[in-house]
């Protein structure tokens, strides 16, 4: 199955309407999910807040904000992501990222910048404790049992007692287990430091590379690492991440650009050309088994997302390579991922 997703980032947009419009457009294209990037260091709204605002204005599309793990409180982060899952009725994801700069550290004043390696290790701990907190309520913990006067069965709530290198959490969460069990975790696995964390904790790994062969190599590596961590490699979706500029929509892609595949730029691998050629590229990379799908960042948000949905996606659907409706309602269902079993189920608290 081919998985398609898109970024709805818009430089300096501070109104809800423009984000709702883009997310609805992506939903019209039946994409698995949209992402919204975030950092504490450059202009922009809180991404999780924006996608929470988008949730009731959309019906099916997955919503994946970036939430960083370096200066935030893991307990707050897991609660907010779980809540996005509740307000979207099972459509939440979470793109994990770290804050490496001293400038970001100064905004908090609690610690200095640290090497990416250490920060990704910590991000892994945050991913781990978040999953534990999401499981800290068993699905049937709320019993509303009138005869005994108990609202919950306390044996189905669990202290997580997590001790990491930089933080500890006692638990349980204040938020009951979210609809998807675990909201979908997304990690950009392009850089080496993040790759182990992706293999270990991510449901979706993004890979920024310019060729099918290169992407396939990273995918193989991620799947092998996932297996080493005791995971089923088929429970990890690897998506090629491209910036797409469909501005030359009517013309064939130039050699060396769209026609010959993407090229490396400061913003990442850039595909430039028409929607038809992009559909060919997607079909061929996916057909070769190099990727499970794509994450596409429109160079010019409105224009390129519109061309992507009405051009590229429509064509892929026409060729029978991409679905025409959402068969399920949760993001996990779109991605073909099972709802995780609760790690505490059956254990007394």
């Amino acid at each position, binding site marked *: 199955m081919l998985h398609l997703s898109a970024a709805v980032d818009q430089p300096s947009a*501070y109104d809800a309407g423009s984000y709702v419009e883009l997310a609805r457009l992506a939903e019209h294209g039946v994409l698995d999910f949209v992402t919204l990037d975030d950092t504490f260091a450059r202009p922009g709204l809180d991404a999780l807040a924006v996608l*929470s605002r988008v949730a009731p204005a959309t019906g099916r599309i997955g919503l994946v904000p970036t939430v960083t793990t370096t200066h935030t409180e893991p307990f707050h982060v897991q609660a907010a992501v779980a809540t996005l899952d509740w307000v979207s009725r099972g459509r939440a994801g979470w793109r994990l990222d770290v804050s490496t700069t001293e400038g970001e550290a100064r905004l908090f004043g609690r610690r200095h910048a640290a090497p990416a390696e250490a920060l990704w290790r910590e991000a892994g701990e945050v991913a781990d404790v978040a999953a534990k907190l999401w499981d800290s309520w068993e699905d049937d913990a709320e019993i509303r049992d009138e005869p005994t006067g108990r609202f*919950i069965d306390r044996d189905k709530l669990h202290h997580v007692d997590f001790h990491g290198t*930089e933080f500890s959490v006692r638990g349980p969460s204040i938020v009951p287990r979210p609809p998807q069990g675990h909201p979908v975790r997304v990690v950009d696995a392009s850089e080496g430091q993040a790759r182990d964390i992706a293999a270990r904790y991510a449901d979706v790994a993004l890979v920024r590379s310019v060729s099918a062969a290169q992407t396939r190599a990273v995918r193989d590596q991620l799947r092998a690492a996932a297996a080493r961590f005791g995971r089923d490699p088929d429970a990890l979706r690897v998506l090629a991440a491209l910036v797409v500029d469909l501005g030359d929509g009517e013309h064939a892609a130039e050699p060396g650009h769209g026609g010959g595949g993407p090229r490396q730029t400061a913003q990442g691998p850039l595909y430039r050309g028409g929607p038809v050629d992009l559909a060919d590229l997607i079909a061929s990379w996916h057909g070769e088994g190099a990727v499970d799908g794509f994450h596409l960042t429109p160079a010019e948000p409105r224009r390129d997302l519109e061309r992507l949905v009405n051009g590229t996606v429509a064509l892929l659907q026409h060729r029978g390579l991409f679905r025409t409706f959402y068969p399920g309602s949760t993001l996990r269902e779109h991605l073909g991922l099972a709802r995780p079993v609760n790690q505490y189920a059956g254990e007394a608290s």
Partner: protein
Amino acid sequence: MTERPLKQIRLAAHFPGVNNTTVWADPRSRSQIEFSSFEHLARTAERGLFDFFFLAEGLRLREHKGRIHDLDVVGRPESITVLNALAAVTEHLGLAATVNATFNEPYELARRLATLDHLSGGRAAWNVVTSSDAFTGENFRRGGFLDRADRYTRAAEFVATARELWDSWTPDGLSRPFAHRGQHFDIAGEFTVPRSPQGHPVVIQAGDSDEGREFAAATADVVFTRQASLEGGRAFYADVKGRLAKYGRTVEDLKIMPGVGVVLGDTAAEAQERAAEIRRQQTSPQTAILTLEQIWGVDLSSYDPDGPLPDIDPVAEPTLTEGRTRRGNTLEIAERWRALSREKGLSIRETVIEAGGRQSFVGTPQAVAAELDEFVQRDAADGFILVPHLTPAGLDEFVDRVVPLLQERGVFRTEYKGTTLRSHLGLSEPVWKG
């Protein structure tokens, strides 16, 4: 005496969350987590032209005798995220989140609140609470090391810092670097969010202590209080408003809103009967014993909830319950309760019902409207935060039956005049301090 114009009543809705206010055993009771419940209550509040919708917060599940408390409603979603979603399904209603100043950092929270203000078109409010306990701290990086005495100094510096960040963009959209160095925070950089529609989200304070009142007088736009009897309310109101002048503020700058319950009936007797039934449902036999244990600080599970209060005195420092603020001297409370029980011949459960609970307005819609109005005109309050006992339909009857009567009395709006929460509350725009 010159007649002063009628004061306009402020109304807010509290989502019935985690406590024994909510009567979860009622057949009409629905999920306290599902978005549809929040949506119903918020839309009802907006239909009733309320000023704002209010969410409480608790960052650790309460424990009693070392085990997670299991009698009341437990579990709630994270407030700011829910409010952003509610911004999509409401148009005018203010959206107030309770967020702890101890377990957050100014840069991040100021950004989240400014974002909510942008995404809602100027409807955000922050209820600043100050829990400092180590029990809650066990869930956080910072741990539980903040002294009780420091919580309000941190909260005050927190709010001041947030306001510096909100003022770091000029009203015409230029970002300027900020730097704050104080006792609790030493931070610098650039804020990522432009000045939001309200300039500063509305600041609410909840906390009845002397320090809490001073903090409110110096910084808050709204006070959420438990004080709500007519006489107690008048004293509290006069005290807090009396503290404003020394901060260069006027009585208009701070709205005092007690949390109250309302129970309606077609006759006074029917309303009284319903109120009594609700109190009984809120205080089950187990809840009565547990409430007593919170005060006595010892195991009382062998006592009969329908029998008399214990003769033994409470232990000095009750430690059975963690995660809930305890108020007052427990020996004093115990003596007061025993006197009440003796005087009226009440059992344990009856005493807890009689002594506990919040101020409630009980009666026909006409009587309740008149009483609410009287409280406001006589300066016991500027308005009320209604705490319904049912999720999510607990506000339906009030909006349908009492709001029209308040409108007839000329003390409540018949349409929203402005778009921002500040405009609903009659608060002025904060002056930009660039």
